[in-house]
């Protein structure tokens, strides 16, 4: 079965990208090519100039960390500490380094108090964070997050957003796969829209998500803020607004000018 067709995409070092599209558009299939879980039947995927065909998943994973959608698909250890250390052992880190990195990763995601807890005793959101910690622990250059916002409440989403932005600011390449439009609007990354195995559009979040026809192709709707502005077109307000704070400023200016 052909899942992707004519996909050409370049991701720069340190970029922040959101891959969006409806279910079955090929988002996850595409990112599984980035760490060699899937190899292209035609064409090439190059990571740092090396084709994924020539490298094993394990050696690619060292560079490209992949956090799967469902943490229950990877948790199996008796303690959170062991879970985070698992990948480090696979990559052959020294015992002392493992300890240091585990402490660092747990601290980063606020999981220190669960160090000796079984991952199966944690809540859904916490399990998701353990999965994230277990990948970040080996400090990969690229981090791929598959549907990071599913099953998270608003506060956790906000924390996650800040965390992702922070990771990106530290120079990591971050790729998220999602159809959470509001989340993407707040993150403001480069957006790659997919539909039926093809990339239908790519560009800044502001440019792509405010284009009603484009997002309709990928079966998503523009963010709520954009919908308001699209509805207020008659007032000659700008229609390419996705950010809440920007929206407030524009509206305040407009109200002041008209009063």
């Amino acid at each position, binding site marked *: 079965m052909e899942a992707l067709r004519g996909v050409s995409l370049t991701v720069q070092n340190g970029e922040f990208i959101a891959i969006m599209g409806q279910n079955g558009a090929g988002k996850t299939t595409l990112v*599984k090519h980035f760490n060699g*879980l899937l190899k292209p039947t035609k064409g090439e995927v190059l990571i740092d100039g090396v084709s994924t065909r020539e490298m094993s998943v394990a050696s690619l994973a060292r560079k490209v960390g*992949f956090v*799967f959608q469902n943490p229950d*698909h*990877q948790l199996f250890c008796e303690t959170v500490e062991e879970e985070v250390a698992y990948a480090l052992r696979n990559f052959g880190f020294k015992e002392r380094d493992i300890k240091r990195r585990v402490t660092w990763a747990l601290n980063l995601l606020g999981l220190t108090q669960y160090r000796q807890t079984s991952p199966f005793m944690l809540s859904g959101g916490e399990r998701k964070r353990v999965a994230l910690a277990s*990948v970040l622990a080996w400090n990969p250059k690229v981090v791929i997050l598959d549907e990071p916002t599913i099953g998270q409440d608003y506060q956790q989403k906000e924390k996650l957003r800040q965390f992702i932005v922070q990771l990106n600011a530290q120079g990591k390449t971050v790729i998220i796969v999602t159809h959470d439009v509001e989340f993407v609007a707040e993150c403001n990354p480069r957006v790659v829209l997919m539909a039926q195995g093809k990339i239908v559009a790519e560009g800044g979040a502001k440019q792509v998500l405010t284009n009603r026809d484009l997002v309709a192709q990928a079966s998503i709707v523009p963010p709520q803020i954009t919908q308001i502005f699209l509805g207020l077109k008659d007032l000659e307000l700008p229609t390419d607004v996705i950010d809440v704070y920007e929206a407030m400023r524009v509206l305040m200016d407009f109200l002041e000018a008209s009063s």
Partner: protein
Amino acid sequence: MSVFDGLRFRRVSSPVHRLDPRAKFFYVCVFFVIAVLFNKLLPLILLFFVQIPFVVLAGVQREWVRSMRGASLFAAFIFLFNFVFTYFYTEYPRLPSPSLLEYSLAMTLRFLVLVESFSMFFLTTSPDHLGLALEQSRVPYEFCFAFTTAVRFVPVLAEEAQTIMDAQKARGLELERGGFMKRVRNYIPILIPLIVSAIRRSLELAEAMESRAWGASEKRTNLYVLKMKKADYALALISVLMLALAVYAWLYLPIPSITVFLPS
């Protein structure tokens, strides 16, 4: 997973698919009995090829070939074990003795015949019909339901195993690395999440069923009722005749061993 591919039902319509599962099951049982009855190569070869017209009639050649290929590894083992152990523990004279070879081949073929007929049955019988057949055979509904559910969740579980494997590979797991014990241990990170999620899913399924009033009515009725048609009676009759013929041959006919046809 290739062995299970041969058991995966695909919804198509063919004369064989439309047969009553009870008649088909009877046919499979007859094959089972006949295959166990004979330990000579000739009748087993016959049994193997007799089934091929059914496979073609059902249009499941590709799946059938796949299940045969999946079974071939086990078949090789069976051949090897029979060959080696019969040589050491019986009075067969020399290692490459044709009769020993024939016996081992016959045992292997017996296995293949069994796989063939069972895969034939599962390939052409939908899980729903199977459950229905069980129910109409007065098996308690709880058991029928458990059975059909189990069958239906096999592909789901296979898919989940694949995802888990991917997730662990992304964390540096290399399944093919290390010695034998290490390789076995490599599967722990896959088995634990798989089992945990299967248990979790079964609990969720139980809750979902109860919230839809499972077991509320004592006497269930079915939308579809299986009914034996002419073709089903014909298949049952053919099966009975085959069985009778086989038993007769087994009792009264000398079965030539394949060595007879070899130049001495």
